[in-house]
C-alpha cells in the first residue's frame, strides 16, 4: 500500500544529524530509503520541493483529541487531519477525555481508532490518577504496557504534592515521565486571563504568574527528591522559565514545552484581538489556560526556546465547539485550536530573528522526541536517517497565508488568529510513508 515517493530538490534539514543541504529524499516501504543528490525517482510519486525546506515531520507532545466522549469538539479522525495540515506526523493525545484515558481499555480504544482512522501517528498519554480526580494513582503499569508514552492529568494539575511524588516514583519503574499542568488553583480562583493591566481594564479576574511558578518550583523539588523525570507542560512565564533553567543547570531530569501562542501573543490579544486595534473585543478565542501573558513573559519564553531551556514547541491543541466560545468571556471554554497554525505562528520568531529556522525545526522534531524519549517507543522518529519512519514535512518558510478558521480540518475553529496573515506554510506532509497533506495550490 505504501508508495514510493521522491521529494525533489529541497533544502533538507535534519537537526538530529546536523544534515543541511539541498538534496532529494526517497521514501520506500514507509521508511526513509535515501537522502542525497540526483536520486533515481523512477516510478515514484514526485513532490517538487525546489526552493522549499524538507524536514522531519513535526512531533507534538500535547494535543487534545477529545476522543472518546467529546467527539462534538474533535475526534481522532479530524484531529489527526488537522495535525497533517499543520505538518505534524506524530501527536501525543492528552487523556482528558470522557472517560479519561486512565485504563488499558480506553488506551486500546484510542490506538484502535487511530489505526483505523488517523492521518498521523498517535501516541497516548495516560492519566496520572483515576478519573483524573487527583486522588488515587491510575494503573500506570498497565497503561505503560498498553503503549502510553507519559502520564498527565492535564487540564488539571496533580494538585496533591504527595500524589505527585508517588506518581513520579512509581512511573520511574517504567521510565516514563509525568507531564504536569502547573496551576495553583487557590491563586487563580475564577481567573479567566493573565493578571495584569489588561485584566484590570477589562474587569476580568486574572491569574498571577505565581500561580504557575509555585507548582513548577514544587515539581522541580520533587524531581530532585525522587530522581524522576518531570516534564512541565505549556510554560508561560518568565519565572517558570528561570526555574526550569536553574533545574537543568543542576542536572535534574526536568524538561519543558511551550506553545506557539505563548511564544507570540500577549494578554492584549484578549482585549483587542490578534489583529490589534483599539476597540475592546473580549476575544474568547484568546481565552486559554495558562493564559496569554505579558510581553516580558513572551520574550522570556522565546529566548528560552532559542537557548534550549525549553526543549520543544507543543501546541496544546484544544478544540471546542462554536457555542463554547460564542458566549460571555467568563463562561467560555479555555483553549486554542492550534495544530494548523503552529508552524506559521512560530515562524514569526524566525522572521523576527529571535530563533533560527534550523533551531525551530529542531524544537518541533527531535527536540520533543528527546524530551520524552519517544525514540524508545518509535525507533528513528524525529529524524531523516535512512531506515527511520517516513515522517517528512515540506515547508515554505516565506509563504504568506491568511488564517481562515472555517477551513480548518479540525472541528475546533477556536483561534484568535482568524483573518491574521502568517508567513510560513506547510506544503506537504508525509506520515508513515503516506502523503497525508499536499497543498492543492502550491504556495509561495
Amino acid at each position, binding site marked *: 500500500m505504501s508508495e514510493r515517493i521522491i521529494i525533489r530538490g529541497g533544502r533538507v534539514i535534519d537537526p538530529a544529524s546536523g544534515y543541511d543541504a539541498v538534496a532529494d529524499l526517497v521514501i520506500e516501504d514507509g521508511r526513509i530509503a535515501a537522502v542525497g543528490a540526483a536520486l533515481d525517482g523512477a516510478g515514484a510519486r514526485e513532490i517538487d520541493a525546489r526552493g522549499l525546506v524538507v524536514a522531519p515531520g513535526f512531533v507534538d507532545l500535547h494535543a487534545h483529541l477529545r476522543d472518546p466522549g467529546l467527539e462534538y469538539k474533535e475526534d481522532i479522525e479530524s484531529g489527526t487531519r488537522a495535525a497533517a495540515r499543520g505538518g505534524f506526523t506524530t501527536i501525543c493525545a492528552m487523556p482528558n477525555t470522557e472517560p479519561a484515558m486512565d485504563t488499558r481499555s480506553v488506551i486500546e480504544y484510542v490506538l484502535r481508532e487511530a489505526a483505523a482512522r488517523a492521518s498521523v501517528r498517535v501516541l497516548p498519554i495516560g492519566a496520572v490518577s483515576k478519573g483524573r480526580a487527583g486522588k488515587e494513582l491510575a494503573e500506570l503499569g498497565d497503561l505503560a504496557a498498553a503503549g502510553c508514552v507519559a502520564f498527565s492529568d492535564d487540564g488539571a494539575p496533580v494538585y496533591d504534592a504527595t500524589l505527585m511524588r508517588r506518581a513520579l516514583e512509581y512511573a520511574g519503574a517504567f521510565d516514563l515521565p509525568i507531564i504536569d499542568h502547573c496551576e495553583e488553583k487557590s491563586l487563580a480562583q475564577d481567573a479567566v486571563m493573565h493578571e495584569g493591566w489588561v485584566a484590570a*481594564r*477589562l474587569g476580568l479576574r*486574572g491569574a498571577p504568574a505565581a500561580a504557575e511558578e509555585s507548582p513548577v518550583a514544587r515539581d522541580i523539588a520533587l524531581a530532585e527528591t525522587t530522581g524522576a523525570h518531570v516534564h512541565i507542560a505549556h510554560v508561560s512565564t518568565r519565572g517558570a522559565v528561570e526555574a526550569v533553567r536553574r533545574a537543568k543547570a543542576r542536572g535534574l531530569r526536568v524538561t519543558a514545552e511551550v506553545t506557539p501562542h505563548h511564544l507570540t501573543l500577549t494578554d492584549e490579544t484578549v482585549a483587542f484581538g490578534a489583529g490589534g486595534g483599539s476597540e475592546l473585543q473580549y476575544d474568547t478565542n484568546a481565552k486559554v489556560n495558562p493564559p496569554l501573558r505579558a510581553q516580558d513573559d513572551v520574550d522570556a519564553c522565546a529566548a528560552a526556546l532559542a537557548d534550549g531551556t525549553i526543549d520543544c514547541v507543543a501546541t496544546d491543541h484544544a478544540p471546542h465547539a462554536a457555542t463554547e466560545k460564542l458566549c460571555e468571556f467568563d463562561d467560555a471554554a479555555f483553549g486554542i485550536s492550534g495544530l494548523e497554525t503552529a508552524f506559521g505562528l512560530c515562524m514569526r520568531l524566525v522572521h523576527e530573528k529571535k530563533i533560527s529556522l534550523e533551531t525551530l525545526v529542531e524544537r518541533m522534531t527531535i527536540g520533543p522526541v528527546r524530551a520524552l524519549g519517544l525514540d524508545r517507543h518509535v525507533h528513528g522518529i524525529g529524524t531523516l536517517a535512512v531506515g527511520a519512519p517516513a515522517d517528512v514535512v515540506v515547508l515554505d518558510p516565506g509563504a504568506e497565508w491568511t488564517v481562515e478558521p472555517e477551513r480548518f480540518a479540525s472541528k475546533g475553529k477556536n483561534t484568535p488568529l482568524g483573518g491574521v496573515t502568517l508567513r510560513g506554510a506547510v506544503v506537504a506532509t508525509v506520515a508513515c510513508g503516506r502523503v497525508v497533506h499536499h497543498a492543492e495550490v502550491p504556495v509561495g
Partner: protein
Amino acid sequence: MTTIREQETRAETPAPIAAPASEESAWRRRHLLDLDDFSIDELDLVMRTTDAMKEVLSREVPRVPALRGTTIVTLFYENSTRTRASFELAGKVLGADVINVSASGSSVTKGESLIDTVKTLQAIGADVLVMRHNRSGAPYLAARHAEASVVNAGDGLHAHPTQALLDLYTIRGSLGDVRGRKIVIVGDVLHSRVARSNMWSLTALGAEVVLCAPPTLVPPGMRDAPEGGLPAVRVETDLDRAIEGADVVMALRMQLERMHGGFVPGMREYSRLYQVNAKRLAYAKPGALVLHPGPMNEGVEISHEVAHGLQSHVEEQVANGVAVRMAVLWLITRNTPRGGRMASARGSL
C-alpha cells in the same frame, strides 16, 4: 395662574426639547458600552443634552413624545433597583415603550444563550437594549450580534458608563469644569465598575483622579499599563493622605462578601481605615462634594452623618441619573435603524 384647561393643552402639544440638534454634533455611536473612547466633545454633548432633559423634567407635565414608537427593553441579569427604575422612567418621559425583562423571569434561566436572547428581543421589536449583566464584557458580545442599540447598564466588574456620566453631571453642576480638580475615589476599586468608568471620563476632562483602597482591593497591574492602556490615575492606600485637598470624594460600596473573601480582615478595621467620615472629610477642600453610587452601607464605607450631611450630593446623583439616561437614550436612538426611519418625526420636535 394657569387653568386646568391650559394645562391639558400643554400636555397634548409639549414644548420641544432644547437638546442640541443632531446636525450640530458628530454623534455616531449606536451603542453605549463604556466611556474609554469618549472624546471631550462627546462628553460635552451628553452634558448639554442632559441640561435639556433636566428642563423637560422640570415641566409641570414631564412628558415629551421624542421617542414615541421606540421600544426600549431593559434586560437585567442582575438585581438593580435604581438603575433599572431610572432607565425605565427616562424612556417613559421620552414617550418610548419600555419593557422590563429579568433574567430570573425569562428563558434565560432555561439556558438560552445571551445572543439568542438578544435576537429574540430584537425580533419582538426592541430598538434599544439596556443591559445589566454580571459578566464583564457581556454587552460587547450583545452589541456585536445586535442590530438594536445596546446601552450598558453595568457589566460585571468592568463598566457602568451612565453612572459615570451622572457623576460627571453632578460634579459639573457644583464645580463647573472638572479640569485640575482633585477627585478621590475610595473603596473597593478592584470590584468596582463605577470606578473603572469614572476613571476614563474624569481623566479625559483633565481631572486629577486618585484611587484609594487597601492594597488588596487595588486592581493588580494598575501601574503597569502602557500609555493609553489605562487612565492616568494615582493610587494611594492611605485615605487621610489621599483625601487632602480633594474637591470631590466618591465613596464606593463595600460588599460584605469581600470581607469573607479575605480581601480585608473585617468590617471594623475597614471602616476605621477607609470610611469617609466627618473627621476625614475635614482634610478635603471646604465644601468638597461627597458622592456615592449607592446603595450605601452607612457605617462601613461612609458614616451616617456624611452620607446625609450638607456636602452629600447622593440624592442629586439619583435625580440626575434620570436626565442623563434620557440624554443617552435620545442620542443613541439617532443611530438605531428605526431611529433613522423616524428621523422626520424626531426632526419635527
